[in-house]
């Protein structure tokens, strides 16, 4: 174990090692104490935030009780507050966003993880008959990296910019389509109103783009950690690439992907600025994709700047509801992901 066993002995004259000095011990101990202290601080901070919001909401909870969650009127002049339309709008827009975001996010994850780029690049090069040249060896990997980074760049665009983009690009783009759909199929509940400007659908489209990078990143991680044994076994049995993906790889990675989707859902629920600009801020419950609505986060963002002390307590109550919803969703997502990684580890061994 020691060098002396190896033959080239630790000579007595040259003293390489020495016990740590008092200063070194002191620095070491201080550093440990600091790490421990800051770890406690981050726990304390999380608890303190929840408590602070809850305490600030107490007066409103006493005044309005559970009726706050089930009523549909928000009228500051009459002192009547309730947030059912906001809860509905939050869940509805997030779910819609999740449907679009999952479709595109998982597709991109499959595309980036299953070697499609390799075959695509190969096929293109084959047209020019240069597919065996060495120089292309790294090309698929590089393009894959580039595409992945581009998709992750979507997450780096600020929420307000997405809101502007929605106002200036998405709404004018989808409006004719939506109004045509309403004119043709107005009997269908989803198309029962026309799109006059801001509404659920543009908000959900923008929101789906905002959550897509999360879904892609986590799904891709889940897909790449599927043991390649499974993939090779499926190919060996004669399955085509998509039979392998649909029957073997996606089911194996399902838990990881699902955990990512739940985390993205949590993110969609809390998204504020883009939704405040796009959702229409109208206090109504409607199934229609084109009607304006409101979300909890947008409600908070719109009402906080000119809130009186009475309103602040009510808004804190709304914040507490939002906090509860996101906490439940996020912790669920984290737990699913944790179990997914354990399950995969089991499969890998």
């Amino acid at each position, binding site marked *: 174990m*020691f*060098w002396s066993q*190896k033959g080239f002995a630790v000579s007595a004259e040259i003293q*390489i090692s020495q016990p740590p000095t008092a200063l070194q011990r002191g620095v070491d101990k201080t550093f*440990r104490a*600091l*790490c*421990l202290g*800051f770890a*406690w601080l*981050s*726990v304390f*901070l*999380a608890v303190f935030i929840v408590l*602070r*919001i809850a305490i600030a909401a107490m007066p409103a909870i006493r005044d309005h009780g559970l009726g706050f969650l089930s009523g549909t009127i928000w009228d500051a002049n009459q002192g009547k507050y309730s947030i059912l339309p906001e809860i509905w709008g939050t869940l509805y827009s997030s779910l819609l966003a999740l449907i679009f975001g999952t479709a*595109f996010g998982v*597709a*991109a994850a499959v595309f980036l993880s299953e070697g*499609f780029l*390799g075959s695509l690049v190969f096929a293109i090069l084959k047209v020019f008959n240069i597919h065996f040249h060495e120089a292309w060896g790294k090309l*698929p990997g590089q393009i894959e990296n580039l595409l992945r980074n581009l*998709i992750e760049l*979507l997450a780096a*665009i600020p*929420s307000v*910019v*997405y809101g*502007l*983009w929605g106002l*200036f690009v998405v709404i004018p783009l989808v409006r004719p389509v939506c109004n045509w759909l309403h004119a043709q199929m107005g009997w269908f509940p989803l198309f029962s109103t026309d799109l006059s400007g801001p509404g659920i659908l543009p908000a959900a489209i923008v929101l789906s*783009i905002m959550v*897509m990078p999360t879904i*892609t*990143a986590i799904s891709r*991680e889940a897909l790449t*950690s599927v*043991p*390649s044994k499974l993939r090779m076994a499926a190919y060996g049995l004669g399955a*085509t690439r*998509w*039979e392998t993906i649909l029957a073997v790889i996606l089911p194996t990675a399902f838990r990881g992907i699902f955990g990512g989707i739940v985390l993205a859902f949590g993110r969609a629920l*809390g998204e*504020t600025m883009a939704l405040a600009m796009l959702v229409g801020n109208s206090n109504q419950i409607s199934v229609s994709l084109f009607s304006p609505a409101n979300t909890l986060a947008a409600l*908070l*963002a719109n009402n*906080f700047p000119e809130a009186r002390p009475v309103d602040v307590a009510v*808004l804190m109550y709304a*914040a507490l509801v*939002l*906090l509860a919803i*996101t*906490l439940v*969703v*996020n*912790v669920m997502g*984290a737990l699913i992901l944790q179990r997914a990684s*354990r399950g995969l*580890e089991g499969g*890998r061994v």
Partner: protein
Amino acid sequence: MSAEVPTLEQQLNPLSGVDFVDLEKHLMKPRTMFSGLLSGLVTLMTLFALIPLFSVVWMLLWRGGSKLSLMCFTALPPTPLEQGGGFGNAIVGTLIIVALATAMSVPVGLLSAVFLAQAKSGHRLAEVVRLAAKVLTGFPSILAGVFAYGAIVLLTGGFSAIAGAIALSILMLPTISAHRGRRYPSGTRQNERSGIWHGGHGDPDHLDGAAADSHAGNSHRNHAGRRPGRRGNGSVVVHGAVQQLLARGPWSREPYATDSLAGCADLQLCRQALQEPSRTGLGGGPGIGSAGADHEPDRAKPVARPKPTFIGEQRCKTHRFCGT
């Protein structure tokens, strides 16, 4: 007589009676067509998903690009109905708030991340800290604002940069301390990880396990056409490992061949330290490696020893730390 031999061969030949035309992968078969169609669909969807990025950039340039000038960054916003002006105050405000928030969240986040990385698995406080980090990860930004409003603005009686910075630092904290400690190259950490919060003792087999671990992980994941990297000398490997630690973004990525190289850093160092006793014992003493029992739960334990081909020649033949 001679006619019987081919029939015997036909009986022994497993491919006899197989219709090779049936095996042919024809483009018009439903299976292959389905596969091809889905491949095209996925490709289109991925490219379609990238449109918003370019659309956003193009919109910003098209609508705002013409107004862009140096004055924008320095001047104050214009009064209504007046041309010119800029958003200098907003830029200064952004810088102040981001600087304050960074100064607040980086020490807390970094040191609690160090704590998380060094605490042994099952450490109760570490579990609580991880849970807190998870709670804060998905924390809606509006709630951080609401909290800062309730805790600072109402108390001090006015909006301030401090209040904004505190809200921002709450949002930054989980990204910095992110519970992604397990993504560090195992070899690097396990060398350092002689146990701050647990009594570490040398476990020769574990070192081997760490290398085998990253090796096995790599062999599963390098299907994207990456060849295992070639070996370098110890310092280069360590440098690479450190660079990787620094280069890690908020998004994780799969381990590449280089990770496996980093996982072997301890082996390389061990070998060099053995041959050059004048170097103070990098990887030499009994404190090397972490306790075998503290294997991270989310890392697979290797069942098979790694094949000696990858770093076979580099491996120390006599010293048991390095595996044989």
